[in-house]
């Protein structure tokens, strides 16, 4: 178990370092931040000095090492635009993004598990078709469109839910739907096919053969098995939610990292971009690790010594 954790943490670290290299070099490609930092009228001497002060005069690989070294101590530098350390700018917003991503994931699970189960149980019936259709709709509509339509109907039309903001549970509903609908189809499909396999399995038939009611069989015995493949890739879906948050946060004025990073990209505010992307990477890697570990709770066959 410990070995396994160490190994996974090691792999995670490699991913994070890799991500930091990618994001560092790609962002450096986009030009000289000095242009954005100093007034055009700044004398060349000042420009040179600032350049040196910021370490931009070093060769790129050294810059990266310096960057990585500082990042290890939690120092991503100051935002070029906002007078604040890039890390704190992003960290302050991370909880909102995590909250949104989790809520969206929860929404998708709450939808896809019953859909998946019912459409497997009533395979080929109208329930199957309806569930599939509804789930697929989410995959066929850009999330910002969904978001706008939700605001138009639920907020402006019926004044049921707050249109924007952060705070009460009511606030999360529309953003979570807009963001969480997309993976419903894929998740439903996973649950459905797993459920089909499980329902065909010998142990379910055995359950029937000793008199279990369908309700108990499906919702107690089959569901846990069918959930395993879903749980396995929840980490990936969580990442998808983090990515999608970039768009949805803008629509709902959600105070998350996504909007911050998007605007930082526009203004070439690399410390913030780097901190933002790296933090999301760390989040992703951690969530994957957690999923892998918690997986054992659901599937007792998993042993972490392999």
């Amino acid at each position, binding site marked *: 178990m410990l*070995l396994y954790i160490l190994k996974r943490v090691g792999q995670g670290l490699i991913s994070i370092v890799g991500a930091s290299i990618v994001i560092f070099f790609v962002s450096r490609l986009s030009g000289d931040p000095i242009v954005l930092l100093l007034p055009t009228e700044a004398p060349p001497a000042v420009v040179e000095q600032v350049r040196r002060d910021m370490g931009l005069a070093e060769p790129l690989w050294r810059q990266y090492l310096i960057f990585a070294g500082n990042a290890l101590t939690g120092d991503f530098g100051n935002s070029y635009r906002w007078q604040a350390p890039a890390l704190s700018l992003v960290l302050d917003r991370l909880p909102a993004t995590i909250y949104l991503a989790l809520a969206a994931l929860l929404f998708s699970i709450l939808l896809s598990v019953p859909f998946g189960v019912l459409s497997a149980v009533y395979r080929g019936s109208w329930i199957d078709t309806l569930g599939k259709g509804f789930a697929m709709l989410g995959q066929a509509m850009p999330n910002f469109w969904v978001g706008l339509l939700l605001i138009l109907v639920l907020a402006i039309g019926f004044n049921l839910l707050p249109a924007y903001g952060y705070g009460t549970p009511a606030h999360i509903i529309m953003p979570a739907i807009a963001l969480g609908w997309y993976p419903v189809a894929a998740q439903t499909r996973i649950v459905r096919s797993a459920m089909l396999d499980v329902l065909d399995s010998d142990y379910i038939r055995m359950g029937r053969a000793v008199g279990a009611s369908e309700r108990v069989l499906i919702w107690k015995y089959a569901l846990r098995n069918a959930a395993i493949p879903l749980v396995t890739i929840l980490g990936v879906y969580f990442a998808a939610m983090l990515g999608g948050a970039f768009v949805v946060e803008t629509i709902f004025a959600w105070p998350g990292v996504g909007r911050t990073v998007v605007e930082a990209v526009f203004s070439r505010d690399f410390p913030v971009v780097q901190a933002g992307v790296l933090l999301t990477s760390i989040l992703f890697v951690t969530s994957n690790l957690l999923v892998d570990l918690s997986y054992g709770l659901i599937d007792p066959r998993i042993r972490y010594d392999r």
Partner: protein
Amino acid sequence: MLLEVRDLKKHFPVGSGLLRASGAVRAVDGVSFSVDVGETFALVGESGCGKTTIARMVLMLERPTAGAILFDGKDLAGMSGAGLKAYRRQVQAVFQDPYASLNPRLRVRTIIAEPILAHERSGRAALRRRVEEVLDVVGLPAAAADLFPHEFSGGQRQRIAIARALAVNPRCIVLDEPISALDVSIRAQVLNLLADIQERFRLTYLIIAHDLALVEHFSTRVGVMYLGNMVEAGPTDAVFDRPRHPYTQALLASVPRPDPDHQPPLDAIRGEIASAMAPPSGCKFHPRCPRAIDRCAVEVPAWRSLGRDHAGACHLAEGA
């Protein structure tokens, strides 16, 4: 000796990647035997005892951890290039699952021609002739060449697999449970076919099976394996008539017979096969052995002769 296996070992490491965990599955743990030209050597034993692993090593699909395999006196380990090619020509295989052993996307013609094409440049016509020839040997019409595997029944597929093995005129065929997946009524067809072919082409068979009646019927020599080790080997008659190792005895006693009046005793053997990762000390069979003595738990029994060409590894089976 056509095929000689000397102290062959195969250990599969458990765990891989960054941090190599200790521990290994000792799938084959020091096995020796030899097969003569024209012989049918059968490997029997319980599931997981390492039969398939041996077959895969003989087929060079797996590299031995230790030990040597000699074919025609040449060590496989040293083979490469032309030597390897020559070897591949001489040893072919038929596997258990007739569904999995034929690529579903290829026509029968391509499947059968594959080993030929891998070895020689032959003209279209010659190739065609050869394919039809071997199809005829296994009793399938020439028209079968243009169909896909899924258009055949299990027994027919196994015939195709045999035809493919015959295509390059091998000297030896490794048969890993060639009929276990087939229906009772079909088995005899395939088995008879294999026997006919052997006679006709003077083939050597290394066959793996778990149906003891079949082994007795089909093989000339037999090796009994338990948990990665050979426990007894010898001519089929000797082993089946006078089994010397308690495991062989138990195995034979346990087989249910298609005769209501001659049924096996129900207490010939107890317990279950141990894990290949942590095999018992001494004689690996001792925890289940009805006749085990103290020594069995500590000392690995040596491989000793038990009669003409008959040998085994048991402390209690002293002398002939």
